[in-house]
């Protein structure tokens, strides 16, 4: 199996919404045959946690100059646009 893609999931406290997002991404990407591993952090810690990260997914505002792709989304909480976001994540992970 190929090396898992690393997704850094950020939210305000790293305990609530990022937990839901991380689980949602893990399950959906497994269904799509993509090997992922997720890490959670507080939005304020993002810059110090970027090593080895392929993609950042955040439920709070984050800087746009991180040097890795960033997706800001509430779809895993509200369900709105979830399929689109999953497609976008899949595409980004398959690209590199």
């Amino acid at each position: 199996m190929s090396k898992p893609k690393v997704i850094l999931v950020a939210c305000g406290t790293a305990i609530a919404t990022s937990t839901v997002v991380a689980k949602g991404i893990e399950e959906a990407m497994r269904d799509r045959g993509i090997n992922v591993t997720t890490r959670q952090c507080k939005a304020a810690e993002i810059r110090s946690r970027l090593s080895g990260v392929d993609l950042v997914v955040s439920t709070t505002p984050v800087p746009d100059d991180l040097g890795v792709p960033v997706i800001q989304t509430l779809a895993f909480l509200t369900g709105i646009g979830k399929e689109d976001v999953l497609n976008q994540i899949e595409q980004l992970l398959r690209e590199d």
Partner: protein
Amino acid sequence: MLAELLEPDAILLHYPAQDAEDVVRQLSQKLFAKGYVHESFADAALHREAELPTGLVLDGKVNAAIPHTDVDHVIRPAVALATLSKPVIFRHMIDPTEEVPVQIVFLLALDQPKSQVAMLQEVASILQDAVIIERMMEADSVSDIIALLQR
């Protein structure tokens, strides 16, 4: 899971909140009175709400907020719930400049990272279900709410 963590004495139905601070303080006070959180929880949750808001635009008539804060202020995990007689303004989680009129509030007291995954997923699945949200808005008793969550 949510039904177990939801504290019956921390459910306010059709609460006429003055503003977002009012509802966060009321719910925090109820969790404090039952020994779930430290007295500092309300201020901490409001501080976090000011910096990193938790308003969510849902796919139905009403919008929600899920205020919460760092684990240090929590003694044991619980959820408090309020349905509001009229909306109050929270700020949008991703775009804090956007005002979100909120009518249902889940105040989350979480005691360790990643610990309450099942409960959080259940909250998310409720937020995604406009029918349940609408029924919760109509609920007149705590037992109605519990019954809805146990379905």
